[in-house]
């Protein structure tokens, strides 16, 4: 009999069986362990199987503002923003009789406390569409870039979101000509709604649709106001990994603006077709197309990883001279002109333009003529950043900090005043036999659990 009782004895016996039957991940080698703590100037591991992988590099360990940080082009714009601010953080900015220490600008970017973010996109033309939209996101507690950079800091939760966008075909290609869709959405704990108006589908799509589709389109010409209050909590509507149509639609809109493919991600809950190599699949089994392509991809990834690591160090205040020089070189490569001017009492503007991009590349059309402006107010810090003259339509992307979302935007009343009757989506789902409550789901042990809310998976 076990010293600790029969139950413990049984547990001990079962664990011995388990130990014989279960295979643990291999113990890391000494070389692996050494690689974990490589100096930041050394690249992170580059795997041949990652060459050409569709997913963008994962952002640093925070998901706040994920709509922005998941978009590679916007991440690049953000990186330029941060690089500009950080570079000038180490030089004095002479301005008349008063010099602003650039380190002040850098500190303000990092430490300024705000409640929310606002992004506005105006006439962003790419991939055959013209995109106009804005997002205002308010969190339940103030945050700063310093806290965003601290993985152990408590994550502020979204308190209110307003998003609106309109996407129209620019007539440049058949796939998008005729498209005209408008979406607005207000999401708070008290009220969740979305307004959708589909004024036109692409002509190419309309050719092949069943006859009832134009009839349905007519119904939506004045717009549909969807009452989303019957659905799950704000967090799951906003940003759950699975079928989140609102954030997926907004994300796709930003993807369009950023010039990415318009192919919607697979909305199903089945396996990701681009799954990474599993434990039992050696990366070398996924042979690259050619050694040159693989090398080029590896070099590019290594360079990107170095820049990302350098920016991370700059924002965290741990960068040394070498890192600053690396970012400065990148900035010089990126922008032909960089200047700082005082525009009014206690307000300065940092501007960068003549970005150097390959003339034949997609970036040239999008950002080649762009002008980056960062506005800094003494006592307030960085107040806004804008990328102007973007894309063929000379669009604008403006980013700023906010401390509240306009309540008139968050309210659905303006649509009701126009005679649009809200549709209770939750009620419809219930009426047709569905459930909006996850607790009704009975997990089947023989099935996988992809459709469960897995945010607290550990």
């Amino acid at each position: 009999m076990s010293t600790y009782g029969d139950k413990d004895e049984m547990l001990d016996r079962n664990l011995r069986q388990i130990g014989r039957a279960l295979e643990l991940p291999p113990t890391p080698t000494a070389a692996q362990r050494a690689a974990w703590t490589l100096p930041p100037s050394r690249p992170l591991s580059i795997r041949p199987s990652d060459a050409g992988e569709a997913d963008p590099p994962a952002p640093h360990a925070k998901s706040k503002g994920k709509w922005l940080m998941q978009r590679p082009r916007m991440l690049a714009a953000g990186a330029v923003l941060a690089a500009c601010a950080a570079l000038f953080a180490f030089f004095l900015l002479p301005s008349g009789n008063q010099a602003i220490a650039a380190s002040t600008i850098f500190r303000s970017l990092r430490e300024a406390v705000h409640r929310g973010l606002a992004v506005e996109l105006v006439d962003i033309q790419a991939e055959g569409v013209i995109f106009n939209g804005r997002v205002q996101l308010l969190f339940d507690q103030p945050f700063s870039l310093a806290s965003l950079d601290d993985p152990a800091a408590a994550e502020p939760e979204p308190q209110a979101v307003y998003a609106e966008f309109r996407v129209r075909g620019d007539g440049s290609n058949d796939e998008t000509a005729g498209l005209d869709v408008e979406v607005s959405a207000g999401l708070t704990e008290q009220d969740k709604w979305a307004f959708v108006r589909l004024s036109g589908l692409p002509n190419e799509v309309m050719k092949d649709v069943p006859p009832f589709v134009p009839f349905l389109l007519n119904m939506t010409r004045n717009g549909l106001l969807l009452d989303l209050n019957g659905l799950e909590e704000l967090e799951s509507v906003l940003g759950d990994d699975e079928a989140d149509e609102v954030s997926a639609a907004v994300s796709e809109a930003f993807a369009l603006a950023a010039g990415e493919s318009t192919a919607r991600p697979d909305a199903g809950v089945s396996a990701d077709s681009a799954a990474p190599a599993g434990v039992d699949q050696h990366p070398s089994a996924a042979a690259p197309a050619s050694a040159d392509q693989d090398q080029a991809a590896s070099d590019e990834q290594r360079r990107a990883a170095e820049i990302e690591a350098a920016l991370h160090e700059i924002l965290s205040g741990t960068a040394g001279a070498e890192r600053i020089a690396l970012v400065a070189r990148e900035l010089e490569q990126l922008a032909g002109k960089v200047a700082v001017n005082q525009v009014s009492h206690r307000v300065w503007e940092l501007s960068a333009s003549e970005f150097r991009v390959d003339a034949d590349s997609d970036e040239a059309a999008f950002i080649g003529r762009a002008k980056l402006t960062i506005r800094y107010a003494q006592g307030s810090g960085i107040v806004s950043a804008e990328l102007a003259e973007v894309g063929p339509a000379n669009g604008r992307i403006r980013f700023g900090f906010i401390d509240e979302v306009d309540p008139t935007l968050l309210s659905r009343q303006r649509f009701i005043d126009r005679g649009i009757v809200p549709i209770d989506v939750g009620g419809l789902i219930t009426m047709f036999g569905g459930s909006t409550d996850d607790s009704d789901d009975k997990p089947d042990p023989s099935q996988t659990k992809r459709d469960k809310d897995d945010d607290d998976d550990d």
Partner: protein
Amino acid sequence: MSLSSAAAGVPFDAGDAPAIDDASTAPSAMQLVFEACGAALHRYFAVRTGDMHLADDLMQQLWLAARGGGGAIPATRLEFWLRAVAKNLLRSHWRARRRRPEHVPMPDPELAVELAGRLVAHELPADELARREVRDQLLLALTELPAAEQELLIGCYFEQRSHAELAGRLGISERAVEGRLYRARQALREQLASVA
């Protein structure tokens, strides 16, 4: 404790680490804990991603985070802090990818609680241990445990080391090994029973 012995995977008693706010030793305390818990943290990532290289990448990110933060964390709480950071890193990774692959194990509270009860009630049949869901829950629970308990359970049940061998490795008596193993077994069972 030297770095070399920490790197050898010897279970680390965080209570022995110098105070983190001792300026002359602060960096080495974090490094000591990171080294000592490295295998357990890597296992944590490896089980939850199914990808050794991704686990290595996440360990590098974890190290970057450890270097940049944790300055005010008491040495006895460093492992707990690292685990919280690791959890956040993993969460952010899946959010960035928007979806996790099907082969990645997911917590199943019902199965885990049932397993916790059955582990002490009767001997599990071999075909049950062959079920992927059962193995997943066991691995998830095991890798949630603190490094010291993990290494002890792995040494005893997976590497089939005797109590004498474990005692020699840890520098404690066999009786102490038995006591620690008992507590580690209970911790594993409690971890299974508390999956949410």
